[in-house]
């Protein structure tokens, strides 16, 4: 079933940030949300993950957890990789005490293997590169087998090769978990490599919805300006 968002609205201090947005992502599919900085992309993720409360609209998610990968990884810097990944299993009220130390080690090793980082359990986030931190945050996100994974600008601040690697892992995790994924990004490369569908936001409105090919082919003023990365067009930077 994945996730379905209907007529979502969110305002801050009477300013409407998300204005009547609707979309659907099925299990095993990836939706890319694109748009200018400040267009409300990350707000959509925060509303879905429950970090923000919506003003109105509906968010219908299939049962199970919603995981989120943050823009700058948000790893707990006082904990090593093992404790970061196993955090939910150790601290969540409904999971606390359910796993023995051996089982935790096994789960963490499996997740690290999935993101290609076996054997770094004892390292601290400060000892890892940006790309590695990002992959550890992927492992932390999938530790509870979520049904929905949200990625907030997963390639931000990474070099092109690390970005490609991260994009590969997004697709790999989708295939492994069959989760519905939403990727917020500015990068056309991320859209091309990962997305099954694309939603473009501008000033809190959805101005395009379709496939990555349609985004590139369709010549509406919004899509043309975004794909060609030009200042000429209806979307104005604040």
């Amino acid at each position, binding site marked *: 079933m994945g996730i379905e968002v209907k007529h979502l609205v969110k305002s801050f201090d009477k300013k409407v940030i998300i204005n009547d947005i609707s979309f659907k992502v099925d299990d095993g599919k990836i939706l890319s949300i694109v748009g200018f900085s400040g267009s409300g992309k990350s707000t959509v993720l*925060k509303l879905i*993950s429950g970090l923000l409360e919506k003003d109105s609209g509906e968010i219908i998610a299939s049962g199970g957890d*919603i995981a*989120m990968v943050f*823009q700058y990884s*948000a790893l*707990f*810097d006082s904990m090593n990789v093992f404790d970061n990944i196993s955090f939910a299993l150790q601290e969540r*009220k409904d999971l606390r005490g359910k796993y023995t130390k051996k089982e935790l080690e096994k789960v963490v090793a499996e997740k690290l293997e999935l993101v290609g980082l076996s054997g770094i359990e004892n390292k601290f986030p400060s000892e890892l590169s940006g790309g590695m931190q990002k992959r550890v945050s992927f492992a*932390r996100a999938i530790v509870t087998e979520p049904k929905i994974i949200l990625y907030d600008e997963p390639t931000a601040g990474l070099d092109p090769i690390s970005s490609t690697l991260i994009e590969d892992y997004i697709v790999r995790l989708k295939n492994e978990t069959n989760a519905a994924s939403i990727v917020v990004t500015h990068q056309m490369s991320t859209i091309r490599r990962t997305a099954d569908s694309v939603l473009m936001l501008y000033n809190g409105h959805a101005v395009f919805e379709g496939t990555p090919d349609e985004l590139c082919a369709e010549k509406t003023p919004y899509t043309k300006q975004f794909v060609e990365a030009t200042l000429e067009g209806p979307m104005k930077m604040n």
Partner: protein
Amino acid sequence: MENDRLVIMRVYYKSTYTYKIFQMFRKEFENFVSTLGDIVFYGLEFLKGLKNKPTTFKEIINQSARFGVSSLPITLSIVGMTSIIVAMQVAGEMVKQGGGNYVGMLIAILMVREEGVIMSGFAIISMIGSSLASEIATMKVTEQVDAISVLKVNPVHYLFTPRIIAGTFMMPLVVILASVFGILGGAIASNLVSGLTYKAYFDSVWFGLSIHDLNVCLMKALSFGFVITLISCACGMAAKDGAKGVGTATTKAVVWSFVAIVILDLIFAAAFFY
């Protein structure tokens, strides 16, 4: 015409210093109410979470070690030096006036009723309160607190509980050690300055102190520990706006903790010694 005049008057009024000063006070008052609201809200949320045992004994021990060990050198130094300064100023004079037998009592009462607790409180605020506030504020602005929430762990319960429990129960230990250290410092200073014997000094210490003093001292220490850690954690959790927000949260935690323990001290003095 009348409307135009009103508009002109409004524009003129907004450019006056009276208006600007009024706006400044209004902003400060709003900040005050908002911080007080944050502290009360997070305090209630912390208490609500206690029934779920949101922390482990190991984490409380870790925080207690941080609280006790890292604050002890500075706390003992401050309280010890305060007592030495007081002894240097009063011991010689009191011995000259024939009141040498009361020097120990004076220093002990001063340490146990007042200086030991309040000076330890100030030291703890500077060492631990500021560190708690900046730690939690950094976690907040780097989205680590959001990450805890998304992983379905209540960040207030998870972060506050071990810190507040450790702070509340370690503070009396720190205060006891600091007060003992202060009384010893007073003894040495009195002996050096006025030649007062240690026996005379400690005899008057036991004479002057009562169980009531010790009980009030411990109650004060418990409440100071709770208030300092709660305010520091709450100010950290309310941080926003990046690195600047971390600085603001830390300053706020220190200032509010200072004011809170002085007010508490006043309440204790009025309730138990007036």
